[in-house]
């Protein structure tokens, strides 16, 4: 379970990125975080995996009081969170297989487990045939699927995706969202920050809308823009 209580983030230059955000996300939920650029979507996600720290309020993820973690505890928080980036952040000089195996290796998994598990997630994202390729030899959509595979290879209970389709064409974006949905159905909490109106409207999941750092709407079965639920 993820809980934010009166969370505020003011950057050193005075910009208020988040303003008194209180939010609870339960296990296995699928949440879209929407809003225009600069509304605070990325900042919200960064506070969750402690790439940034709130200047006020508290962030709790399971047993972690995220803001209070010292640098030695952060890795253990992050092993509970898979992260998908807009720019994929794949290592260009390593093969697809090695990129995914990397995430298991750094947490000290034994080699035979790594081999089995990497093959599993490659099957899930449907890219077993590209295992020996370098990221540059793949299309954008394929690279994003590898990034997702790497994010879930540790079996984290939470998956965060920050504009995962920002660099992709509509059709490919659909595939990515389908994949995220599939992962959610395998009992992973998924939080997606996105601009992708059509997808949000189609999926009808919980929508949290941010505007100038404030939550202006938090709606189950929501759409990108406010919709009146039928009575």
């Amino acid at each position: 379970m993820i809980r934010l209580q009166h969370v505020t983030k003011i950057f050193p230059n005075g910009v208020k990125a988040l303003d008194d955000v209180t939010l609870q996300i339960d296990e296995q939920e699928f949440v879209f975080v929407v809003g225009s650029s600069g509304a605070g979507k990325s900042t919200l996600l960064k506070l969750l995996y402690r790439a940034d720290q709130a200047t006020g309020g508290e962030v709790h993820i399971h047993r972690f009081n995220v803001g209070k973690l010292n640098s030695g505890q952060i890795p253990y928080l992050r092993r509970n969170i898979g992260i998908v980036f807009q720019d994929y952040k794949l290592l260009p000089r390593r093969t697809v297989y090695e990129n995914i195996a990397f995430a298991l290796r750094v947490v000290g998994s034994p080699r035979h487990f790594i081999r089995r598990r990497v093959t599993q997630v490659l099957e899930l994202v449907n890219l077993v045939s590209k295992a020996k390729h370098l990221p540059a030899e793949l299309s954008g959509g394929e690279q994003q699927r590898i990034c997702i595979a790497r994010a879930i290879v540790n079996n984290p209970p939470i998956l965060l995706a920050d504009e995962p389709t920002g660099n992709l064409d509509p059709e490919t974006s659909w595939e990515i969202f389908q994949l995220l949905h599939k992962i959610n159905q395998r009992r992973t909490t998924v939080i997606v920050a996105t601009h992708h109106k059509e997808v949000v409207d189609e999926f009808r999941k919980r929508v949290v809308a941010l505007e100038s750092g404030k939550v202006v709407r938090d709606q189950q079965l929501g759409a990108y823009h406010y919709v009146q639920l039928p009575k």
Partner: protein
Amino acid sequence: MVVNLDFFIKEAWLGIRRNGVMAFIAFLTMTICLCVVGLVLIGLINTNRILKTITGRLEMMVYVKMEITESQTQELIQDLSRLPQIKQLSFKHRNEAWQTFKRDFVLAMPFAGIEDNPLPHAVRVGVYDIQVIPSLAEIIQAYPEVDRVVYGGDLVDRIRKFSEMLRFVGLSFSGFLGVATLFIVMNTIRLTVLARKDEIEIMQLVGATSSFIRWPFIFEGVLMGFMASLMAIAVLWGAYRLFLGKIQASFIFVPVFLELGYFHWIWAVLILAGVGVGMLGGYFSVTRSLN
């Protein structure tokens, strides 16, 4: 840790290969530094040995004139025994001294042609305190039978001063070089760190601990340090093989200890120093990127 050992070492070797020129420069500086440390250690061992040998002989030799006979020398011993500074007196027959001399220096000089013993009788004088030697030497010199009084006090003093100087200059120079080397190693590995900034970031994002991220860089330093210490040992060993003969020839009266046995712990110290400096360099180079 054990599971990942091969991963760390592979990554470390990759790091060295990726910035070969800098790694080679760091390796050379380290080798030179370790050679200097090795030389200082060898010098210190030898001066200490020499000092020990000489101070072990806190005594002087009184050589009587050639015409003085054995019984006259015995009388001189009786006279000298009344002096309170003297701890011990012993007679050394000229024939015995000649035998010893010929045996010790048979390699250094050709004695075949010399049949007559050129040495006088002598009295070995042991004292309680090294301080009294110069004044006692003057008193003994005044006896008419005495030709010459020889003692090593002055030499002892000079070697001690040399040893102290060597320790001070040598060790501070080694320390200075050590710090300089540390910085060069740090900067070299820093290049690898920068080349892998993205990897480090991703490692952190997927939950790698700081120590896990550090290990490949520490291994890189250790690998460089280890290779440099082996190189330094090879250089010192080669120099030893080359110059040993000449050194011993010019220090013929002084024991120079340049045998392999004494080198074992110098080699150990050099390997430890190289590996240690490399380790520190690796550790510090990556620390800045982790925060």
